[in-house]
């Protein structure tokens, strides 16, 4: 059993790491990179809690063998958070009471980021579909959906203000 060297760009920084066969992306993020904002929920792709972006698309980090994504760009909740203040999605979650226990929150926000990057003006149904792979056991779905819709408005108006 040989370890292999894998290169990933994590939150904009290039990282090389020695990984054991079968290591998943969440193992690397949490255990060796100290990025604990990505949470372990079920370890079998059944809850969405560990969602991160891989090359801009949502992925369950607990089900991704690191070796299969050599060279990929990975973004986590830590990377989404700007150095100062909050990302508009985070701001919308905060203002909209879209966190309860907070354990699913990172995953929900990463899903929202991928959705809004692709579809800046989603319908309620688009949002429902986008987060249908993320379980919230406090069941704050209504507030989460509202927050994502609110985030879309915030991002659009920020872009509009910039253009003007």
């Amino acid at each position: 059993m040989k370890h292999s060297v894998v290169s990933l760009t994590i939150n904009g920084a290039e990282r090389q790491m020695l990984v054991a066969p079968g290591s998943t992306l969440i193992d690397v993020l949490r255990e060796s990179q100290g990025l604990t904002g990505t949470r372990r929920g079920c370890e079998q792709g059944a809850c969405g809690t560990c969602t991160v972006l891989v090359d801009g698309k949502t992925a369950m980090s607990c089900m991704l063998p690191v070796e299969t994504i050599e060279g990929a760009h990975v973004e986590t909740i830590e990377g989404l958070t700007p150095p100062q203040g909050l990302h508009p999605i985070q701001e919308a979650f905060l203002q909209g009471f879209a966190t309860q226990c907070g354990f699913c929150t990172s995953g929900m926000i990463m899903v929202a980021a991928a959705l809004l990057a692709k579809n800046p003006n989603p319908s309620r149904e688009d949002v429902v579909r986008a987060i249908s792979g993320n379980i919230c056991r406090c069941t704050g779905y209504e507030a989460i959906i509202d927050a994502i819709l609110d985030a879309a408005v915030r991002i659009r108006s920020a872009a509009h203000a910039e253009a003007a």
Partner: protein
Amino acid sequence: MSSEIAFPSPQHRRHGSSAGQPLTRRDGVLKVTGRATYAADNHPEGMLYAVTAVSSIARGRVTALDVEAAKAHPGVVEVLTPANRPPLSHDPDDKIPPFGFRVEVLQDDTVRYVNQPIALVIAETLEAATEGAALLNPQYEVESARTGLENGERFDTPAVGVGAPSRTAYGDIDAGLAAAVRVTEADYVTPPQYHNAMEPHAVVAQWDGDRVTLDMPNQALALSCAAYAAYFGIPAGNVLIRSPFLGGGFGSKAILNGPQILAILAARMLDRPVKLALTRAQMYGPVGHRGQTWQKLRLGTDGEGRLTALHHHVLAATSSFDEFMEPAANASLPLYASPAILAEHDGLRLDTGTPGPMRAPGEASGSAVLEVAMDEAAIACGMDPLEFRLANYAETEPGTGKPFSSKSLRECYAEGAKRFGWSGRPLEPRRMRDENGFLVGWGMGTAVFHCPHFPAEARATLRADGTALVETAGADMGQGAWTALAQIAAEALGLDPDQVELHSGISSLPDGGIAGGSGHTASAGLALHNAGVDAIARLAELATADPASPLFGAGNIGVEARSGRLHRRDDEGRSESYSEILARAGQAEVVGTAKAARDPAVAEAHALFSHGAVFAEVKVDPDLGQVRVTRLVGAFAAGRIINPRLVRSQYFGGMIWGISFALQEEAVTDRRTGRIMNADLAEYHVPVNADVPSLDAILIPEDDPYVNPLGVKGVGEIGITGTVGAIANAVWHATGVRVRHFPIRLEDLLVNQRDVTSAFGN
């Protein structure tokens, strides 16, 4: 974009008094940035990883473990088994009151349930510990598993739940039934369910001599410290539990469990920090669940649709070695007026992990069944289900005749029914279809939950800069305690909530009681309130005794705390700021402390309950049996509301748990082996957002002068009661099929003829 992150003082806009306002959550910023640290996020220097090996049989003995193979695996440091497990100072078979459970900590080689810990492997990496546990290759002497009614052992029990009576009788039940014009009688079953908080149970334990620091999610800090202290033979003050964030608890993080104790023991044995995090599958056994029940309801009614007797019998499953049972029949005690009520329980011992309190223990499964039975009785009487409940409205507590401290259930019924549009509902089932031909049904249920109050303590420190620090060892498992508690403290201190810093979630602070039983806001809140009042009193003493103060001599008249100033009660114009008072007194701060508990006389004199009414609409595919809940309206009266946004979230959460109970959740046990065949989140279904319909929670104003000085009742659990029955009743109303077990499944609704000629058959 936002301004600077400020923590813990939230940004908000405030109008009027702080209590009652939807302030931003104090933990919000840490949660949305991923910086909130849950137990498993801690990683102290030199830390080892522990993984439990668990039994795959439900009953028998472990005859062999290949400890050599596990130890030979690179990175494995130690393997704990019954052969080498260091002693504990308290016998794990002996329960520690008041909420103690017997714990499985390798005391012998006996196996009592599937997923029981049978060894603990400690290694340098998680991967090595996991593989080490897999290499143990346990051998068993297997005994036949007792998994159901056929082979479980029935027993009489004096108590159910946590010390609740197992049998309560008011009036003469036989006479009541004999006097009835009709008796509605049916049997019902509720399944085993698992809490499945999103955050798996975890602990990081670090010893320093005979002191231990535990990072763990915990709903009951002080009680847990005392219990760990007993197990490890150290003073309670030597146990420090840090539980700043809980990724959900729902009752499962209030009780000590074997795996966590073993990890703490391993850390002491190896003199290195140890982390243990359960896998999702390992949560199906040692950390509690909602036990299965078999329930029988007999409702006698007279010619006017009034109850003459209400008999609720529950057979409640528990483990072979402990006693927690769902106090489900007690849900029938406080709600409907009946001259005779009998609520009674028997126990059934099965080879499972011990059940424990899970969101609305007893009330959830008892109310689910009671509300269905009430629906059946209403139909038998030819009455509208709401009219039937109103006909049996209890003006005082049934049986005891005590007045309710407050009860606004009538308003809940009225407002809920109005918002839902209940009037005009046809009595007969299968009368409504939507534009696409789906069957539509409307059902309702009454929600009720008791108001426990746990003793709690708090400290409030007014500081020279006019701000305050308030402290209590409470737990925020998502309900928003940090926010609501700070609001209560701010009000007592006459400050803006953003001038109040709250410290909580660590056991070194004053005991905040238990975050459970929907009693945390009232319990810890009252302590904080009293501490705030005490701090203000001390400040007032300084001011009124100081000739230089405009408040000098106002001691007898009294002062009021408002907006950071003390005002003379009889003269608004004479006031002084907290900072000025402290500065002149030459004090850096003034500290108020308080202990708070329920006045026993209040509970003696009053019945204390939150109430609500839930209305549900379901649509059912007439041919395929697929059910969707399309509308849920709940109206709840729970005393004074501190933060309506948080409260609404709690009601929604409870109502969605109701959907889950009615239509989804069930741990499926293999009857032959006792193994749980869906011990994960893929096949043990909990709702995803697509299952959640339009929700509406109406907050009925309610002033309760008795329940506690704050007038606050509980909101965390009541939402699940009422909702389960409302949905089941709506399914009946849509389909005409009465399902008497939960969850309601596709196949239950296939009894109708094929509907191929309907709107679906073109």
